[in-house]
């Protein structure tokens, strides 16, 4: 079979162009210009659905020594209901059921939304107990968001919501 070296060179040029182009192009815009990202992410276990019960001395005495604990808690935990408001409007919202066969697992929340840059007032609130009406954790803060900024809203039981 004959070979045409000029055509081969042309083919190699096409090969280089294809590899060179698609290795970096077309450019992809992950975050629109003039926007920032708000991420509400935390791990938290809801409170027990029923309160822990005090075990009486008689009941404790019936138990083997290694199983004697002053309180007895039911396993099932409450769902986590969380909501983030930006400038008075709901931005992120979810209700996460506790995982696990007995509904006793911790919940991982990861919610995000792109928002316009500038000054915004955020209110974040959470309910982690079916025994509480409304929200039992609330935090609010005004933030001046810069372009491409990532506002990370975390939660821990000691500090409550933390804006990072």
């Amino acid at each position, binding site marked *: 079979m004959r*070979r045409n070296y000029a055509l081969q060179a042309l*083919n*190699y040029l096409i090969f280089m162009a294809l*590899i060179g182009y698609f*290795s970096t*192009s077309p*450019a992809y815009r992950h*975050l629109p210009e003039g926007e920032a990202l708000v991420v509400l*992410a935390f791990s938290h276990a809801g409170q027990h659905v029923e309160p822990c019960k005090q075990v009486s001395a008689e009941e404790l005495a019936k138990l083997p020594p290694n199983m004697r604990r002053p309180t007895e808690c039911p396993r099932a935990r409450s769902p986590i209901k969380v909501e983030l408001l930006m400038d008075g409007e709901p931005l992120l919202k979810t209700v996460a059921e506790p995982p696990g066969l007995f509904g006793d697992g911790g919940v991982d929340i990861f919610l995000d939304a792109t928002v316009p840059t500038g000054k915004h007032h955020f209110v974040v609130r959470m309910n982690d107990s079916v025994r509480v009406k409304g929200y039992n954790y609330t935090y609010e803060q005004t933030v001046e968001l810069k372009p491409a900024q990532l506002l990370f809203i975390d939660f821990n039981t000691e500090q409550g919501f933390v804006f990072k």
Partner: protein
Amino acid sequence: MQVPPLKRIYLALENWFNYSFGSWNPLYHLGTLTFFFFWIVLISGIYLFIFFHGSLDGAYASVDRITHAQWYAGGIMRSLHRYASDAAVGCILLHMFREFALDRHHGARWYSWFTGVPLLWMVVTLGITGYWLVWDKLAQYIAIGSAHLMDALPIFFGSMARNFLEGALSDRFFILIEFLHLLGQPMLLVFALWFHVRRLSNVSINPPRGLAIGSLLALLALSIVKPATSHEPADLTTVPQLLNLDWFYLNIYPLLDYWSAGQVWVLTIGITLLLMLLPWLPPRKAGPAAVVDLDYCDGCKQCFYDCPFDAISVQARSDGRAHEHEVTVEPALCAACGICVGACHSSNPFRMANKELKSGIDMPQFPVQALREKTKSCLAALEGKIKILVFGCEHGFDVTRLNSRETAGITLLCSGMLPPTLIEYALRNGADGVMVSGCRHADCYFRFGNRWMEQRLAGERPPVLRSRVDRRRITIQGGAETDQDVVEAALAQFRERLTGLVESEDDGKGEDR
């Protein structure tokens, strides 16, 4: 016969490359080219590893030094590493497209297709961890995207994506990714590649030297013209905005901006499963496997050497005859190509002239006896001055379209099924010339049919065509279904040559008289 549109597109592309590259046609060497690109990736990767600092703080700076401070060596190596990886994915995609378009994934060949599909993902994930190691904005983007994908699987506790935001990353993280990219994933890939070619014989891993040199030079030139560079360093307090994605590897990630990670998994797993199941969509009935007849098999092992799909094995003689070996066929592996029949010296049509011709190995759907009878009947029907018999194959150009008063076409299962002695038989029994067709030169639906046939006719591979057979009366012209013009032109040229030959022989006889 109607040629499917996809096949027509592929054949046109192949034709273009044939004009340019001849037997170096990259479409005929996609597997070996992929191997070659991996060699480039390996060598350039080892070089990069020497200078790479695998830590959260040092990774970006070390890659930056490699790229800029030693642009003449490290920079080129980095670019080669990237572009050869991209070229490998391109080759794999083309390889899949080719096998699909040419319908080479059905029947006994399901295994190579089935085991090949996951290889694509293994290569892609290997590339992803490679991009991760640079720890720039692109790495940050794919790290968080990958974490979202992992979080969607019910096998991890906690949120990986949140770890990135919390700044919970450490150098251990880099050691893990380094281990995966440098050792874990490549080893898994090599193992999977071994599985992929497990049911093939005579596997080659090196492309033709000319093609390898050309490809390397092209990648080198690209590395100099457009060196690979990094994005800005990763910064987990900001979000990557405009990204120069490597679309060969990172095409899944933008989907995460529109779909949930679970939906992306459903799509990728769905496409993967669909691709893996293609050999059975729709199910196709394969031709019966080759059958060994020990009464005529002397255990010469030539069919074992020639079988492209490792369907034939050799074992100790079981029938008490004096021969040392016998062969057996594994029906599940047999692609029913008939190449073993062409390899068997007992397929000689001069044997058993007055009784049924039996061969040591034969195809039930087209036994050598039927082939001899077909040859005889075609020769008897030929008229005119120059009688030409054309042997073709089921998967190339349909040679019966050449049928005329002076030409008869016989379609074999593969051109490699043709016993060389049948050519001599045809020439001795009235044919002025024999043309052998099949798939395009350097290609074969059954991998080696064309090549073995050409080598047998050239006297380079047993069973050889005897040297006393007049080679001027034989021509080989491969062609795909769409190559009618090419095959007809070759036939016309052959007829012209034979006419000159016959006339000069007639003149010689006249002078003798």
